[in-house]
């Protein structure tokens, strides 16, 4: 009776249960961001023109580059799972490294974007720069922007830690067909962070360009 399979019938039973449990956690995370989606939906309904104006001030170029970076990183990390299951630790390691670097690039670009946003007076407050006719609600958009991208950034930061952990496992040649649950769970998490970004991207960067 090994410690890990104490309450399970066997290793597969344990692995499947862990992955299912992680999906439930992701459902919970979905509702966490769901609150933000509700905020956006309600205020866009009330302050349509202000939200459009505000969205036009978002940095579409950086936002778009970041989108490509992030879905590319999910693709790379998704490729690490079959490699890990094959026991191809070396391949898995390098795929993790590429994923990690792409994630880092996203975060650095995001920080730079924040810096330019702040420089343009887009943080709501006395110096907020979007004024004039039809701008009502613009500060709400930018308050939403900073909270949403901030929380997404924190999730990504946690993801970087998890990917580094998997890279370390691969470096130590610990991944194998029977020991890939951690890799699978982290790949779900990383793709989920991507999914959240794919939701946020049109809400933040595209909604103001419509029509």
């Amino acid at each position, binding site marked *: 009776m090994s410690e890990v399979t104490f309450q399970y019938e066997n290793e597969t039973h344990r692995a499947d249960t862990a992955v299912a449990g992680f999906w439930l956690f992701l459902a919970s995370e979905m509702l966490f961001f769901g609150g933000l989606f509700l905020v956006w939906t309600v205020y866009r309904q009330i302050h349509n023109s202000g939200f459009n104006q505000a969205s036009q001030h978002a940095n579409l170029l950086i936002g778009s580059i970041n989108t490509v970076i992030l879905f590319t990183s999910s693709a790379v990390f998704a490729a690490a799972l079959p490699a890990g299951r094959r026991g191809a630790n070396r391949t898995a390691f390098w795929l993790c490294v590429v994923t990690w670097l792409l994630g880092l690039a996203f975060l650095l670009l995001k920080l730079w974007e924040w810096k330019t946003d702040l420089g343009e007076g887009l943080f709501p407050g006395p110096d907020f720069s979007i004024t004039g*006719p*039809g701008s009502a609600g613009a500060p709400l958009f930018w308050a939403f922007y900073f909270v949403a991208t901030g929380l997404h950034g924190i999730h990504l930061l946690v993801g970087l830690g998890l990917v580094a952990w998997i890279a370390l496992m691969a470096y130590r040649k610990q991944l194998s067909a029977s020991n890939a649950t951690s890799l699978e769970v982290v790949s779900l998490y990383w793709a989920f962070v991507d999914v959240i970004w794919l939701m946020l991207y049109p809400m933040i960067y595209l909604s103001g360009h419509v029509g």
Partner: protein
Amino acid sequence: MSLLPQASRMAPRIDWLIIGLLIISVAVLLLVFGLMLLYIVRYRHNSNIDRGKIAEKTWRLEIGWTAATLLCFLGLFVWGARLYAQLYRPPGNALIVYVVGKQWMWKVEYPGGQREINSLHVPVNRPVELLMTSEDVIHDFSVPAFRIKHDVLPGRYEMVWFTADRPGTYRLYCTQLCGVDHSAMTGWVTVMAPADYARWLAASRTGQTLAQQGQVLFMRFGCSGCHHAGLSGGGGTVRAPSLNGVFGSPVPLSDGSVVVADERYIRDSILQPKTQIVASYEPVMPSFKGQIDEADIVKLVAFIKSLAGDR
């Protein structure tokens, strides 16, 4: 139900709903407690009563009491919802009184210019509509004797109305937690016979009606430098819309939309003039946010409202 006076037209109707609910509740309670006592006495473990066979199929009973409960609830829902809809549909001829909530007092202003704190005077048998706003946090205006209650929010006007039908004085409360002295934010509503009310209005007159006070403010804040209002104002170097006849009429905005100029729109235009520019005018009006409190805005609104008939 004589614990609390029924001092408005709505009060007995809401009490009937509560009595209806009470009757149903007592009946269900007697049933539940009765059956519970009956079963625990009759079927106590050392009783030798013949228990017979227990029912195997239970779904008939289950469907039965589910349907009965549901029907009863639907009836209660319709009853409550119809009364509620009336609570929020004021008659057109109501007397309007402005109420401003502030930590921790109620400021009341009458169209005739009378003002009071933590006190409201109304005539008997006449619908009264309260237009309420808050200077800070959410408050709630509640008069139990009238069975009315409504939250008072910052940044918007909320409405509640009633027809008092029994002269007397009744307590009013703030019933939304609003900070340290929440429990001190109380006062009295005085319901008076029409003749007494007229006397009270005359005695409390401050010399000017609310609209006249608004006109004074209109001059003092420099509004009249640009806006034409009444027989004066306007004519300065800056072109601004005339305010005669604005209230209640549609206003075309520079972004192509049209809004009806109501209390909300007037208030907005004073505090945040740049967001709703009247078509073909320049956005040059400064914001008065922070320079003018809600009680004074009420006066300006009353003044502009009084110009509704002028063209």
